[in-house]
């Protein structure tokens, strides 16, 4: 499998070249184009663990705001290629997981190799975003993990302490300590400071942030659009 990212950093597109028999798993709606050797299978990501477990995983992903189904793209009869794009404007990057774990904001997941497990129900999943419809996913296993940002991605090597507005978090290493809380100290900052929740990271590890906040963007534009029923 070979993954190339084009048109970084503004409107990145992921191009995946598969050898015959290889599989890439992508969130529903991400496919842009593909050649004739690719077949698609809609699945709940069960990975052969039994129907019930598969259904549970699917439901967890629905809670996360991810599409219920993940599509499996397989090259059949010959090698093939397929391109994926995220919903939001911005960048796409690939991380190779090697029996390791990365935490990932739910709208950031684009696609991954079949050996990467994506979980939305771990302990801290819902604590980051205050009910804005986002959760923090936990991606672990071995293989490529392709994720996107809204805006530009900035990788930060945390060594000590660092504070980030949670809407700007894309991903972070599992070895970072984190604590989610209100912005600033006083009631005034919380109510009027305009920031939502912030996350205080400490320790040593990598953190990826995005230079735009999807919820803030949605609220600004949504407010200027005609009402819905």
């Amino acid at each position, binding site marked *: 499998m070979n993954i190339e990212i084009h048109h970084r*950093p*503004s409107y990145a597109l992921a191009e995946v070249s598969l050898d015959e028999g290889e599989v890439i798993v992508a969130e529903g709606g991400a496919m842009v184009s593909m050649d004739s050797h690719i077949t698609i299978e809609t699945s709940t990501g069960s990975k052969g663990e039994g129907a019930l477990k598969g259904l549970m995983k699917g439901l967890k992903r629905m809670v996360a705001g991810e599409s219920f189904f993940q599509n499996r793209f397989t090259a059949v009869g010959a090698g093939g290629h397929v391109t994926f794009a995220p919903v939001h*404007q*911005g960048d796409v990057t690939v991380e190779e997981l090697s029996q390791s774990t990365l935490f990932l904001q739910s709208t950031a997941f684009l696609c991954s190799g079949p050996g990467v497990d994506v979980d939305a129900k771990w302990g801290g999943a819902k604590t980051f975003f205050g009910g804005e419809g986002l959760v923090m996913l936990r991606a672990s296993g071995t293989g490529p993990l392709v994720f996107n940002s809204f*805006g*530009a991605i*900035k990788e*930060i090597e945390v060594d*000590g*302490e*660092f*504070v*980030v*507005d949670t809407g*700007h978090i894309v991903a972070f290493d599992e070895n970072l300590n984190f604590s989610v809380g209100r*912005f*600033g*100290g*006083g009631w*005034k*900052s919380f109510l*009027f*400071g*305009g*920031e939502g929740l912030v996350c*205080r990271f400490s320790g040593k590890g990598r953190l990826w*942030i*995005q*230079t*735009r*906040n999807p919820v*803030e*963007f949605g*609220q*600004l*534009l949504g407010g*200027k*659009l*005609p009402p*819905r*029923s």
Partner: protein
Amino acid sequence: MRIEVEARPSYGMAVVHLEDGETFIAESGAMVAMSPAIDVATRFNGTGTGGVAGWVVAALTGLARKFFAGESLFVNEYLAKSGSQQVMVAPPLVGDVEHLSLEGNNITVQSTSYLGSTKNVNVSLVWGGFSMLFSKEGAFFLKCGGNGELVINSFGAIEKVTVDGSYTVDTGHVVAWEGDLNYQLGRAGSWKSTMLSGEGLVMNFSGQGTVWLQTRNLGSMLGWIRPQLPT
């Protein structure tokens, strides 16, 4: 203090480096990330000189900014409590960010294009004239002057145009202009053209100076996405 802008022109973000005791003021909601030794104070986005009367003036001008200029009601002041601190700020819309150093000169900024500044920059509300009420951008601008740093943002990329004589700009594409330039509001083409053409008001600039434009127009973008919204 040092200001660097990253990710231009698509998703610009200003990284403000502060030494012990230095302050930066930014629109509320703009903070992306910051180092731990920074104190944040939230205050009304208005001009006041202290005391109860000052507080009232600040509140009133803050409200005026909110309702007429679309500015947020509050700003945050970031104060570094030790050396080598950083605060990263970005606007909500996609587009560019630019850092300008003021040295006693004035720059007039479209109200939604103000992102942040240092305390020694004086930001005051300026009335744009009655015709501007008909523009979608509103009738107020922000006049920024003094000696200090100013950070502006745009929807789209920022294009600098050097005006030497005259130049006409669609009002939705104006970010800022140098204080010395004159402008007159007008229509692109005849009144029929204005009603039908999709071109709204224009500003006819004259004189010598720089105009900062943005390569996208929020009204047009909303018009483009609207027919595709689910019913």
